[in-house]
């Protein structure tokens, strides 16, 4: 691997460029027209304009991405997160044209994208899954729902990430919601298979970072808590998950590794679990086949560079460390500073940053593509920066973030800064793990 094509934008494109340069690799950023002046395009060895602002014609255009990578003599593609990162067509086309795809093979991406198949494989690997299963008609659904007990969720096999889910409180609603879920799933995902799962009413979201090389070595790099969410979007994440029972943590880690081994997972990935807050029992949810937005909290506590690790694994290098070499240092918390307007229900707030200055302080890492003058186009997610506080303990990590947020200079767009400070200072959050419904309730 010599030259890496990066069809992405924002802070993650900057992060990948820096990882490439750290390994002595050249890189070409494929940017949409409004992103051609962006930080990632400016620090790359070369930039090419792959299309206009709307992602469907630029960052989601597989043909343009592969053509651009080949024409600029790249030998690898790092897709980042979002966009084409979990699109098996890109992984397939890259391979067909002799390009290394920095991620798992298309076969694995397809399996993980089929939530029902992934659930079955997880169960076969011995991972705990929620009571439930596929239902082909109302009769089967009624029988299964009675067995597992209401409320239940109807989920689309082609969904994931919170999409394609219906909550069914009683048997009276089941038939109607089932047929609605099936037709919506067919329209949205081209796959009308649905399954039932028991609803965990109060839950934590905990995930396990995995790394698997081409030689069959699989490591877990600890866990993250991503329970603070708004509309299924993570807002604050931390490593490791606080106040997790040792037995639960060990169970999560071993289940994640067993699942990755079973499906011959490759490169970095994340196994997501839900933890029933009432019982403390964990259940496998899904596998994400990409680098996660929140990977820096794991990097902070493990002293590892996960993006460089992705590139090295894709190059065929065996993992340089074993499971016993993975150790954890202190605690890290990340918050996502978004261009959102709190007075309009946190709707995206595009514009141009007239001021953007982040304080420097010990224990603070900021991943961002923003500077004064940076445009925040309306076409993409509204992430401006990730602030990561790393301290000797959780309180210290949180204090670093609160001070950084208070000292941050940002103007030109609205942001969720006040919300983040409110979360980080809230007694519920400070006391330890909250539940996934906590933030929406606290906002009311």
């Amino acid at each position, binding site marked *: 691997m010599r030259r890496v094509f990066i069809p992405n934008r924002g802070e993650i494109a900057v992060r990948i460029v820096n990882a490439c340069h750290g390994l002595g690799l050249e890189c070409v950023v494929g940017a*949409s*027209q*409004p992103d051609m002046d962006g930080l990632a395009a400016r620090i790359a060895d070369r930039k*090419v*304009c*792959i*299309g*206009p*602002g*709307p992602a*469907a*014609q*630029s960052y*989601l*255009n*597989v*043909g*343009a991405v*592969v*053509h*651009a990578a080949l*024409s*600029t003599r790249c030998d690898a593609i790092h897709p980042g997160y979002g966009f084409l990162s979990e699109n098996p*067509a890109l992984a397939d*086309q890259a391979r067909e044209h002799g390009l290394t795809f920095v991620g798992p093979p298309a076969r694995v991406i397809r399996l993980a994208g089929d939530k029902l198949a992934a659930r079955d494989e997880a169960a076969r690997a011995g991972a705990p899954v929620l009571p439930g299963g596929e239902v082909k008609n109302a009769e089967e659904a009624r029988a299964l729902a009675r067995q597992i007990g209401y409320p239940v969720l109807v989920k689309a096999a082609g969904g994931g990430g919170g999409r394609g889910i219906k909550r069914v409180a009683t048997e009276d609603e089941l038939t109607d919601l089932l047929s609605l879920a099936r037709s919506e799933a*067919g329209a949205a995902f*081209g*796959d*009308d298979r649905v399954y039932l799962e028991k609803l965990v009413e109060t839950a934590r979201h905990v995930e396990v970072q995995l790394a698997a090389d081409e030689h069959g070595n699989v490591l877990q790099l600890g866990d993250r808590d991503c329970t603070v969410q708004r509309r299924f979007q993570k807002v604050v994440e931390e490593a490791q998950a606080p106040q997790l029972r040792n037995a639960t943590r060990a169970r999560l880690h071993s289940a994640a590794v067993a699942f990755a081994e079973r499906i011959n997972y490759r490169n970095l990935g994340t196994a997501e679990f839900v933890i029933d807050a009432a019982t403390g029992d964990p259940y496998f949810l899904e596998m994400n086949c990409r680098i996660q937005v929140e990977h820096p909290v794991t990097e902070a506590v493990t002293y590892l560079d996960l993006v460089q690790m992705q590139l090295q694994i894709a190059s065929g290098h065996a993992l340089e460390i074993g499971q016993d070499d993975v150790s954890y240092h202190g605690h890290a918390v990340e918050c996502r500073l978004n261009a959102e307007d709190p007075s309009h229900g946190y709707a995206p707030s595009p514009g141009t940053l007239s001021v953007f200055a982040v304080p420097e302080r010990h224990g603070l890492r900021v991943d961002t593509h923003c500077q004064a003058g940076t445009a925040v186009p*309306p*076409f993409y997610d509204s992430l401006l920066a990730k602030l990561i506080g790393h301290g000797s303990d959780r309180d210290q990590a949180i204090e670093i973030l609160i001070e950084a947020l208070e000292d941050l200079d940002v103007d030109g767009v609205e942001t969720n800064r006040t919300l983040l400070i409110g979360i980080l200072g809230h007694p519920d959050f400070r006391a330890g793990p909250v539940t996934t419904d906590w933030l929406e309730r606290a906002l009311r």
Partner: protein
Amino acid sequence: MPLNDDDVREILRIIDESNLDELSIETEGFSLHVRKGSADAGDADARSGDVLPRTAPERAPTPPASAPHAAERDGLETITSPMLGTFYRAEAPGAAPFVDVGAPVGPDTTVCIIEVMKMMNSVPAGVSGTIAEIVPENGQLVEYGDPLFRVKPDR
């Protein structure tokens, strides 16, 4: 040619990720016609069994600030590339180029082909006038928005 849901999904995905607006497939006992977007995609001269690559018109919900359209400079208008790809002046190697310097063009005159992963997309001039300059070399990579031709417009 029996198609299952996966096949249809795959076809829709390919169309979605391409610059095609419209696709017609017809084989024994099966015909499929798919059109992307809305109104202005109607004039594709689709022969059955053929995939006709067409250039993407401005159909984005929010068009980019500087639309890749003929833009005026020094009294000349510029035809810019509607997509990233390889610039070809002729339909095939050895064939006569679509246009040369001095050639008259109308809005619908094909001036070049942009090839993206073996998909040939013909580019219309979009303006009436005379070709004054051809900017890229034949076979060169052009990016979205790159200048392709300068045209002396009819007045």
